[in-house]
């Protein structure tokens, strides 16, 4: 293994170097944190990547545009739908495709459901890192199950949805699906209350999370941190609001902000974001119009993916994925394959500030901080 | 029950032998961690001897204080300094010979004392000292030395805290 350039020299002090990962119960995959310890205090921490690297970008550069869609599912496999969204957005920008009204609504509904799934799962996993033996996680999964059932019924798959198409979506939402989603939304506040009763005021959780892993707003912006982690630091930056992509500017929702930017704020901002997502979903379900789900111009490309040749140019499409800003940079040279395809992965870039957050904290905190950043290795390593 | 008594006696001697072996281990083994473990075993053996001599309370205290607290702290110290735990240490040095001579002299004096002291034979061998009596002795007859010891212990504790604190603040600044 290569040597990790720690800032402090190990030989001088009585320091212990430990690798958390690549096989470790709480690195959420094959991720390695090389940690320098003095007793239990962290003096140095370097993340090491690449254990799940499969060169997603090169695979994509050798495939027609449409065939990349299922691969984007495998980036952040907890919420494949938002990945689809980002890629579809970038390519539609590139090709100048319009999306029909109903399809936009379906996209927003699915993306918000995916956000809810991600946030409850993340809170569950973070609590697991905190040592709560699976209870919050399984409560979260109980609710996630119902949403995944919707995904399965609509998109055909629970995780690897491959649902978005350029200029629309693959399947329509039936009335039954909409009713089912309404039912889920109706029962969600009760679940959130239960979840909060279990966690929010829990003294042990507060002790463990409050004032741990503090990230100031300035540092967060400079380090390119996005998503709930950034908003927990008190920066009002939600791409749904800023860009208003798709039809997000039509909905009335707010951006929850934390004050301190510690682990607790990240936890609670996620809970509040679930509430906002529910709000968006309610509005979307009330307003969803009838109509086409695919742009007529794009229909032939479904049967003939190799005929889809966006004009020469480049596009950077970004969305607010549950993890942060998910950007797709696509360069077309007029052939069926993208010449350059790049993913701006929030899971990777949010780790830039990991070391600062962990320095001086205890070992146990480092793991919770990692859990609160919320990474998925499929996206980090690509 | 003569058989049982014989067994107990035999057990005491066996315990003594074991204690001796482990005590030798403490001073001869090259690995500090092993030494500490031997020390723990020797102390437990001592407690067993106490038990055999029907000093239950003493045995309990012996294990609680020496094994549970002192040895644990020793091992904790050894493990904190990671370099020590893996290393092997030579336990004898150039001063072994004077030490042996000194020890021999000490043993001789002790032996002389033991021989000269008029030990009361058979007097207290079966008298069982209850916990209550120990308590009364500590809180009554020997209350002054008891309290003095506790003052000394408190002083030591405060001293330790002071030292630890200073170390800490120096590191932070």
């Amino acid at each position, binding site marked *: 293994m290569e040597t990790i350039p720690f800032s402090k020299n190990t030989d001088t002090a009585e320091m212990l170097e430990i690798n958390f990962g690549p096989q470790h119960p709480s690195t959420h995959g094959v991720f390695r944190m090389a940690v320098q310890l003095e007793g239990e205090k962290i003096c140095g921490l370097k993340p090491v990547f690449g254990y799940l690297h499969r060169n997603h970008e090169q695979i994509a550069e050798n495939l027609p545009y449409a065939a990349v869609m299922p691969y984007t599912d495998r980036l952040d496999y907890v919420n494949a739908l938002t990945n689809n969204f980002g890629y579809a957005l970038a390519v539609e920008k590139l090709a100048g495709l319009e999306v029909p009204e109903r399809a936009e609504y379906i996209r927003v509904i699915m993306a918000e459901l995916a956000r809810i799934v991600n946030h409850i799962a993340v809170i569950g996993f973070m609590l697991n890192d905190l040592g709560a*033996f699976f209870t919050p996680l399984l409560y979260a999964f109980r609710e996630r199950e119902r949403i995944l059932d919707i995904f399965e019924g609509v998109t055909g798959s629970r995780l690897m949805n491959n649902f978005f198409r350029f200029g629309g979506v693959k399947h329509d939402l039936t009335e039954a699906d909409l009713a089912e989603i309404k039912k889920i939304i109706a029962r969600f506040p009760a679940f959130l209350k239960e979840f909060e009763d279990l966690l929010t005021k829990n003294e042990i959780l507060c*002790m463990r999370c409050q004032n741990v892993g503090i990230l100031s707003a300035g540092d967060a912006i400079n380090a390119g941190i996005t998503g709930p982690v950034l908003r927990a630091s008190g920066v009002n930056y939600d791409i749904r609001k800023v860009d208003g992509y798709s039809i997000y500017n039509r909905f009335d929702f707010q*951006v929850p902000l934390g004050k301190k930017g510690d682990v607790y704020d990240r936890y609670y901002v996620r809970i509040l974001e679930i509430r906002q997502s529910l709000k968006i979903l309610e509005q979307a379900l009330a307003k969803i119009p009838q109509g086409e789900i695919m742009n007529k111009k794009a229909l032939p490309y479904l049967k003939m993916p190799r005929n889809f040749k966006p004009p020469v140019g480049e596009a950077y499409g970004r969305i607010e994925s549950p993890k942060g800003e998910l950007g797709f940079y696509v360069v077309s040279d007029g052939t069926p394959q993208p010449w350059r395809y790049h993913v701006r992965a929030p899971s990777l870039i949010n780790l830039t500030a990991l070391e600062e957050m962990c320095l001086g904290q205890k070992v146990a905190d480092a793991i919770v901080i990692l859990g609160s950043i919320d990474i998925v290795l499929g996206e980090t390593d690509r | 029950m003569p058989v049982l008594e014989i067994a107990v006696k035999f057990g005491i001697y066996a315990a003594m032998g074991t204690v001796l072996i482990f005590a030798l281990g403490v001073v001869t083994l090259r690995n500090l961690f092993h030494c500490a473990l031997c020390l723990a075993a020797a102390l437990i053996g001592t407690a067993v001897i106490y038990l055999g001599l029907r000093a239950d309370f003493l045995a309990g205290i012996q294990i*609680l204080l020496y094994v549970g607290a002192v040895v644990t702290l020793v091992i*904790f110290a050894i*493990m904190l300094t990671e370099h020590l*735990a893996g290393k092997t240490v030579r336990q004898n040095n150039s001063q072994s010979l004077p030490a042996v001579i000194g020890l021999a002299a000490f043993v001789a004096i002790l032996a002389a004392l033991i021989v000269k002291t008029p030990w009361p034979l058979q007097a207290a061998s079966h008298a069982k000292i209850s916990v209550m009596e120990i308590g009364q002795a500590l809180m009554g007859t020997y209350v002054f030395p008891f309290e003095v010891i506790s003052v000394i212990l408190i002083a030591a504790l405060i001293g330790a805290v002071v030292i630890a604190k200073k170390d800490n603040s120096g590191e932070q600044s």
Partner: protein
Amino acid sequence: MNRILGFFDQIFVSAKAWLLALLGRFLPDWVVVLASIVISGVVILVMGAVIMMYLTLLERKLLGRIQNRYGPNRVGKWGLLQPIADGIKMFTKEDIIPANADKIIHLLAPIVIVVPAFMIFLVVPFGRGMTAANLNIGLLYFIAVSSVTTLPIFMGSWASRNKYSLLGGMRTAAQMISYEVPMTLSVVPVIMMSQSLSTNEIVLAQSGCSGLHWFIFTPWGLAGFIVFFLCATAECNRPPFDLPEAESELVAGFHTEYSGMKFALFYMAEYMNAFTLCGIAATLFLGGWQGPFLPSWAWFFGKTFILICVMIWFRGTFPRFRVDQLMGFAWKFLLPLTLINILVAALWHFLPPVWAWLWSALILVISFFILVKLNINFVPEKRVYTLES
């Protein structure tokens, strides 16, 4: 009615007496004494093993139910054969010894750890007249023996030559030493009230009024019980105090490098400790085997079972403490509370009943709030979140 009850109450005691009497006909006395020890020992060994096996099942079942799932239910009816299947699995697993390990100590550690776990069983009063060894220093014995448990954990963690193990071992040492202090002190009021160290005497001191004389029904007893129970949870490394084997941080702490039967022995010691500690807690504060209608051993096992369920309930609910908070909790919160509790017990002894109740409850509640105020970093901060558009 009473006779039937009495018969069931003493069924195990009479069985043993009958067996010994039978032996006494043919054999010399010392053999009978030896046989008595052997019978008790064998019963304890078997019981320890069985208790451990079924505690694992109970824990998995209860956790499953808490988490809205079934828990093991495939091997045998209701998964009753699951522990046996697990045992077979453990036996057939490869025994892995790390290349750099200190092989002898690595082997010794799991063996040594079960010894104190079994030894504590000696002084647990399972029922009326059902204490294996009625020592008059029973409680001291219990505290002393349970303090030895630190050593094998050290041995295992050090001999594995694994950094996770080492960290786990150090955490264990710190935690065990810290929590022994409030645990011992929380027992002191009980000793003061029952004026004995013998577990049997302590149970007898709580007799009468069909359970209302249990020590838990006094202010100092309640406080002592809570402190003792928390410390017991910490002593047997159970959540939320399971830092030595913190899965999400240290993989498995001190037994990271153990597999197969050695691992099972660590597990066994842990569960047996949990059982005995709950048993002792029941003995000290919940009246032990005292209780109306049911046989004494049923009462004992029932109380212990409930306490174990509470421990499992803790596991199903709480996240884990952090090292410094854990130590802080023991030294800054539990320790002062127990000291005050001893004072309260003394007051209780000297004041007339009604006043005693008032004063001791008042002192305890006030000191609780003062301690909370002093340990303000344990108390959650109030946070306000803004919603911006």
